[in-house]
């Protein structure tokens, strides 16, 4: 299983002709490293390479980084950067943190491009499809001219790439939903979607880690907690993971012994 996944997603860096990313300010205390490229597993790998590099060799004054579809935001403490890298300030030059951070990141990006990305983890997530916990499963089937069982089979047979987390703690933005399951959002959002709900919105599928309002079509529910504030790390899924959903019965859902919601 694991090897299969590695074969599917080649994680050796394949260089493209696209240039180095742009580094632009995100306010006065962060920068965005932006790849001018479409959302794709390949762009994602470049984003991941930057993150690995920032993780293993952070610059002094770096606070944290946040990857997204085709950029990485890097948060920094400007005064700490100025104190740590006086050698980056030559006489007569402008004396403020951003040019130093940009220079540090440019050096780092050269190295990141040469670094092979980490091997993806495969995470299996049990889902009880349909029933009370998946009230829109029938609608998704009808909308796509499929049977309910076909929707379950298709949804649980793909590997989904976690591009990024955002919106709520542990919420994964997943790529890889079969176009045959694509379904528009509900015309009016529900006020409270229970935590663990698995849904489809347009060409995306996802899992709600916390109870929140939302307009997704709900097809099932997982007993697995995606946000575990006392665990390290506090989330079940991380950017770069591959997710596989597998169907379980209602009794298996109830009896789930792992990290429960």
């Amino acid at each position, binding site marked *: 299983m694991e090897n299969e996944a590695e074969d599917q997603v080649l994680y050796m860096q394949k260089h493209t002709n696209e240039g180095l990313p742009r580094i*632009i*300010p*995100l*306010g*006065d*205390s*962060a920068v*965005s490293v932006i790849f001018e490229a479409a*959302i794709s597993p390949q762009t994602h790998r470049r984003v991941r390479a930057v*993150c690995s590099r920032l993780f293993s060799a952070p610059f002094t004054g770096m*606070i*944290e*980084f*946040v*990857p*997204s*579809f*085709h*950029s*990485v*935001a890097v*948060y920094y403490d*400007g*005064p700490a950067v*100025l104190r740590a890298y006086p050698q980056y300030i030559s006489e007569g030059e*402008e004396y*403020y*943190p*951003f040019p130093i951070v940009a220079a540090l990141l440019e050096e780092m990006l050269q190295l990141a491009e040469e670094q092979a990305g980490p091997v993806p983890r495969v995470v299996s997530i049990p889902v009880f499809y349909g029933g009370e916990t998946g009230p829109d499963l029938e609608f998704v089937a009808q909308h796509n001219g499929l049977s309910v069982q076909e929707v379950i089979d298709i949804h649980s047979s793909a590997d989904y790439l976690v591009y*990024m*987390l*955002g*919106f*709520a*703690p*542990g*919420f994964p*933005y997943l790529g890889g939903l079969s176009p045959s399951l694509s379904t528009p959002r509900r015309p009016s959002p529900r006020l409270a979607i229970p935590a663990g709900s698995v849904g489809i919105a347009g060409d995306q599928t996802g899992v709600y*880690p*916390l109870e*929140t309002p939302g307009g997704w079509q709900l097809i099932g529910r997982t007993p697995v907690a995606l*946000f575990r*504030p*006392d665990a390290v*790390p*506090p*989330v079940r899924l*991380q*950017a770069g993971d591959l997710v596989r959903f597998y169907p379980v019965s209602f009794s298996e859902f109830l009896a789930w012994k792992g990290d429960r919601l």
Partner: protein
Amino acid sequence: MSLLIMKPGLLTTVQDLGRYGYQQYGVIAGGAMDSYAMRMANLLVGNEEQAAGLEMTVLGPEITFAAPALIAVCGGGLAPLLDGQPLPLWRTAHVPKGARLHFGRLPGGCRAYLAVAGGIDVPVQLNSRSTYLRAGIGGHQGRALRSGDVLPVGTSSGRAAAWAERLTRGRGTGRVVREPMNNRQLEERSAGNSGAEAAAIAAWYPVPAMIPDYPQAPVIRVIEGEEYEMFSSESRRRFQSEPYTILPESDRMGYRLSGSPLSLVQEQSLASAAVTFGTIQVPAEGAPIILMADRQTTGGYPKLAQVITADLPLLAQASPGSRVRFRLVTLREAQEQLLQRELELHRLRLVLQHV
């Protein structure tokens, strides 16, 4: 030592300077809305700047001290009272056991911060004591304070202990708060609710230049956002020349503004990407939203501008109904302002070592 919450006020939460290192997992940074006032309050009671305190909003709580404490209240909008007597903002004070801290209203600002020597000692979760209301973590049981809550206070620093001793001995005391008691206070004292000891206010305090006045109609400095150039020139001009009103549905997550609508030259849908404190984003209907302390970690609306860090406290203190104007500055100016402020705080830290 602990604080007893007699009345919670409108929205009182435990906050520190925020939760960092977990935004890549979708965990918000949170923290004090006006981090400057929070840091000043901590410095004035001898705490580390990142110690936890209380953020109090518009209508303050009523708090009783279970033991003598060194405290400071910084910020705006709320007028602290100790057993009915005014307590100055931005000033170190020693309060006796049983003292009752409550609040009146004050023009200018809408949030005040209470720091207690030793800090509010709730458990650290994900590297911070800040309350994350939506996820129900951090702070006191992951929620806003309620009547009857008891908040533990940590151990004071040596400096705080020395200040407390000086103030209780009367040396370095500016004035004693307790003027002749009113009837209620006399009753409370005879009922044993209030110590006979007086509160003492330090004779030292930050220079006026370090104490912000929180204007009702602030001019907020911004730098260009990532999508600034994608907005029409008319929209860019309006944004910098016309006032925007903060709407009532604004909160710790974000400020919604009403005013001249803003639009892109051409509608575009953007991929979600990281946002930060002060990001001004504009959804398709054209009304800007400024992301505040409890913002989500990522967003997909075009980013028109970014409030400079040095001006975030002014914005955090602007209440619904306030009219805000925006002035575009360079990144360099924004960072110089930030360094200037850090330098002032550094100087204050040095001076306080020799008080």
